[in-house]
């Protein structure tokens, strides 16, 4: 009976007692009294560093470095040889080698990996004459391969080798021809690769004028330079002529002068300048006689936009010539039935474009915006036509610049219209805040959202997020538990010196929650500890020595990651080049976050006559291209099969009946780095 009474009392006590840790105390004293784990320290005692005692190996290493500094490669080589022999002996005895020989060799070989990784062009410019020419030649060869390859790929894409091998040859298909005809006559302008090669050839001529290859390279340089100058001249003349057509005489004047700078002897540029001067005089007369409609420019821009939209809906880039060739080939090979197929295909393409036009903004509104803003700028408010506000609001809305659109809808007196826009803008800001890695950025987005669109649903969601962001324990560099497990040195005795029990999964001896810890700017760390009521933050001061030790480890880690994986992320944080207010996650956590992005990116269309989807698998899965859909023959599933040793891939299409196999010349995969600098 007594025993039952005791049990009942205990049960009642447990049920009635409120969970202390769940309470929120505003009073500091109460907080202190109810602090959880008040006497717990997460740190292990500080270890003093090991003293250094050099042995024979250490002396050899020191010697090698001295020889390297004295520019005596033979001396370094000798030490490397000795160390290699020592290693061999160790391995023979079943012991571990020193692992240092390759570092000694690198003292004289100086592999250019580091500089090549950060700035390969700079490395090439200061490289040997052979390396300079090799790189330039390689760029020219790549460009040649791409030009020829692109054109031949079209021809090849029309021939089904599979059907031929299976003894049932099919007629060539001309569908791939759209756009290629225009490209074929693309002119003789040097591509960025060729212009880059020219830079390297010039550098060669500048640095090695006595080299025996100079005459050949001079000729190559001259040829490339002539093409480059011609391309630049044509570009400036075209700009000038366009400006002239648009009655922008000052713009034309400017570009004709630029053209003269490219080629002083250009008669076209000189004639253009004379024409500009004449037109300017004529314009003066016109301006004095005919008053302009101030809104005419805006209307003209709207008309131009309409025209561009119509052009967009037409298939093929050089519509008439491309489609003339395609339709012609189709009719020649299949007769009138071919014309019908071509018509159906064109219809499918146009329907897809109409859909994109209705759901997106494929033709930019910038021209309308520029004209509208110019009108607003030039016209006093009381003389403005209110129509312009709505035009601008709609243009901005289509461009996704909702803040501007809202302000113009307000001016247009359409208050109701902008309510839904505010919701859109709020959602967009919330999405950007959630995607931001940095707390400051996140805070800026959330603050803008709460201040500018307070009545929206997104603002209601943003308010608690903003509060949470302001908690002291959340302001700093957060390292998740999984990240810390991946990089044990950071929390080990040479890092922060945290007790290993925090990571052993046993809650009874205090355990770090998955959220990990946050390094606060004030030399403190906020540990997110597991409790029965979820993670709870506890802030500890870090001794100076440990703080420095941690950042030393962090810098070393950052350096290693940059050297081995080419990822400078941690290094940028350690060097202060990036704000340390983000969350560092383990590789697995990152993969979980971006899991959906691992799916192949698909593009394609669905139409009345068939389905066509294409995509590329992520690099982790060999980056192979995939496609599925249906064409005029049957449904298919396709995969690009790279073939080793020859620069050709095969597109394999599995379908009903005989499979199709299309060869495709492999084009250079890498674009020119900093392409903008060679255009």
């Amino acid at each position, binding site marked *: 009976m007594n025993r039952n009474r005791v049990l009942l009392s205990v049960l009642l006590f447990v049920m009635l007692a409120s969970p202390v840790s769940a309470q929120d105390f505003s009073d500091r004293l109460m907080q202190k009294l109810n602090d959880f784990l008040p006497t717990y320290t997460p740190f292990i005692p500080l270890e003093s560093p090991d003293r250094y005692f050099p042995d024979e190996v250490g002396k050899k290493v020191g010697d090698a470095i001295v020889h390297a500094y004295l520019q005596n490669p033979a001396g370094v080589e000798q030490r490397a040889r000795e160390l290699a022999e020592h290693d061999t002996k160790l391995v023979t005895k079943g012991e571990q080698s020193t692992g240092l020989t390759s570092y000694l060799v690198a003292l004289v070989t*100086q592999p250019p990996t580091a500089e090549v990784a950060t700035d390969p062009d700079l490395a090439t410019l200061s490289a040997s004459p052979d390396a300079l020419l090799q790189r330039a030649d390689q760029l020219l060869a790549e460009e040649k391969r791409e030009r020829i390859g692109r054109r031949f790929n079209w021809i090849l894409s029309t021939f089904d*080798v599979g059907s031929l091998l299976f003894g049932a040859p099919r007629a060539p298909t001309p569908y791939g021809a759209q756009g290629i005809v225009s490209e074929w006559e693309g002119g003789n302008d040097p591509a960025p690769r060729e212009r880059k090669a020219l830079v390297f050839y010039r550098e060669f001529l500048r640095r090695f004028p006595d080299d025996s290859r100079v005459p050949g390279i001079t000729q190559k340089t001259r040829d490339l330079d002539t093409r480059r100058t011609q391309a630049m001249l044509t570009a400036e003349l075209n700009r000038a002529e366009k400006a002239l057509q648009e009655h922008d005489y000052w713009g034309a004047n400017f570009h004709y002068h630029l053209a003269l700078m490219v080629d002083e002897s250009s008669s076209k540029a000189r004639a253009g300048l004379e024409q500009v001067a004449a037109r300017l005089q004529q314009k003066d007369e016109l301006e004095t006689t005919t008053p302009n409609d101030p809104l005419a420019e805006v209307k003209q821009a709207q008309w131009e936009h309409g025209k561009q939209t119509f052009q967009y809906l037409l298939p093929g880039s050089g519509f008439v010539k491309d489609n003339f060739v395609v339709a012609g080939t189709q009719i020649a090979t299949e007769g009138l039935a071919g014309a019908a197929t071509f018509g159906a295909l064109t219809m499918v393409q146009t329907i897809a474009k109409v859909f994109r036009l209705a759901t997106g903004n494929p033709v930019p509104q910038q021209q309308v915006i520029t004209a509208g803003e110019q009108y607003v700028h030039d016209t006093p408010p009381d003389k403005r036509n209110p129509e312009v506000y709505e035009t601008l609001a709609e243009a901005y809305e289509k461009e996704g610049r909702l803040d501007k659109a809202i302000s113009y809808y307000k001016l247009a007196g359409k208050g109701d219209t902008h309510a839904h826009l505010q919701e859109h803008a709020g959602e967009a800001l919330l999405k950007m805040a959630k995607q931001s890695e940095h707390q400051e950025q996140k805070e800026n987005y959330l603050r803008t959202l709460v201040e500018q669109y307070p009545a929206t649903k997104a603002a209601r969601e943003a308010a608690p997020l903003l509060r949470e962001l302001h908690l002291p324990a959340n302001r700093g560099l957060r390292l998740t538990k999984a990240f810390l497990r991946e990089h044990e040195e950071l929390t080990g005795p040479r890092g922060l010196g945290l007790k290993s029990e925090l990571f052993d999964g046993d809650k009874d001896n205090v355990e770090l929650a998955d959220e990990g810890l946050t390094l606060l700017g004030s030399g403190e760390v906020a540990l997110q500890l597991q409790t029965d009521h979820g993670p709870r933050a506890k802030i500890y001061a870090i001794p100076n020595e440990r703080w420095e030790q941690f950042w030393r480890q962090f810098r070393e880690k950052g350096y290693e990651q940059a050297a081995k994986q080419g990822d400078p992320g941690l290094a940028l944080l350690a060097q202060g080049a990036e704000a340390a207010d983000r969350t560092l996650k383990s590789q697995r956590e990152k993969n979980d976050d971006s899991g959906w992005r691992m799916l192949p990116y698909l593009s394609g269309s669905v139409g009345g006559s068939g389905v066509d989807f294409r995509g590329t698998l992520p690099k982790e899965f060999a980056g192979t291209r995939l496609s599925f859909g249906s064409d005029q023959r049957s449904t298919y599933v396709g995969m690009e099969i790279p073939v080793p040793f020859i620069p050709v891939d095969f597109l394999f299409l599995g379908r009903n009946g005989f499979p199709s196999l299309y060869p495709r010349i492999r084009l250079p995969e890498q674009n020119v780095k900093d392409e903008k600098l060679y255009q």
Partner: protein
Amino acid sequence: MKRTAVVFPLLLCFVFVLSGCPTERVLRGGDLNASPSLSDPPAIAKVIPGLRDKEAQSNPQYITEEDLLKVVNEFQRAATKDTYRFPIPKDVTGANVYKATLTRLQDYEAKHPGAYSEILAFTRGRAYEGLREYDKALAQYQIVSQSKHELKTEAAKALDVLTRFRDLKQKPLATSTPLDYLKSLDQLITGWQDLQKQYPNTTYEGLAREEEERLDQAKVMFLLINRHRIEDGNESVVVAYNQLLGKHRDSKNYYRYQVEFGDFYFALAQEYVAQNDPQSLQFDTSTFEAVGRSALRLYAQVAQEDGIIEKLEAKGKLEALEAYMAKVGKLSR
């Protein structure tokens, strides 16, 4: 017939594409330092029996040496680069290799106290030298020269050179009149030129050229800032910029100077407009256009150059100049 039609283009494209083209799926750059001797790692591998791949597991017993070699290797890579022509090299993290080395050496010293102190001091000396911090470099070389280390003689040589560099750099400039100031700048420039001649084909020659360039640049800046106080100030700036450009054609800053020279002309055009209302009678279009065209010429020279980062800046400035000239031109008519 159809079979032949398919095979022909295939063969044709193979002939075109296979000739001299790499067949690897991923294109890799060639070995940039390819030369037959020590620069060829496989050659060394043949010479040194038992040489293993760099991926060989690190031995905790020799972590002190391994850590040091990692720092020195990275630093050595940059040691011979001409920093007058090219910017200071970057390490794998994209940081200035001299600054990064100093931080890494500090970390190394804290991790392995007392290890290889002379080598650390010598490396620090080189890094400070590259950053033109001569006092700090001298302090480090002093440590080595006063020891019995093998680098003692080399450190003593560096001490001798850098003492002269420091003394010249610390030489006071006359500030009584602008002319005196410019004269003393010229004297210093001559001093640096003398030092270049004394240490030809060494890193010190490059360093002295950088110092000379810095003074030439200071001269331009002085004239630019004081052009309204000096008689023929604008003309003096033009002369100084032309001298700077003519003298430092090989400098890494050459295109920067051109853009800045263009900015000067642009500023002159704006000043002319501020002083002469384009809508008034005293505005002379030809004067304005002449100044504007000088800016255009300088910006265009940079914008038309390939492979330099200043190209993008110059293109943007050209556009700004175009808009400005058009606006003033319209107002002036």
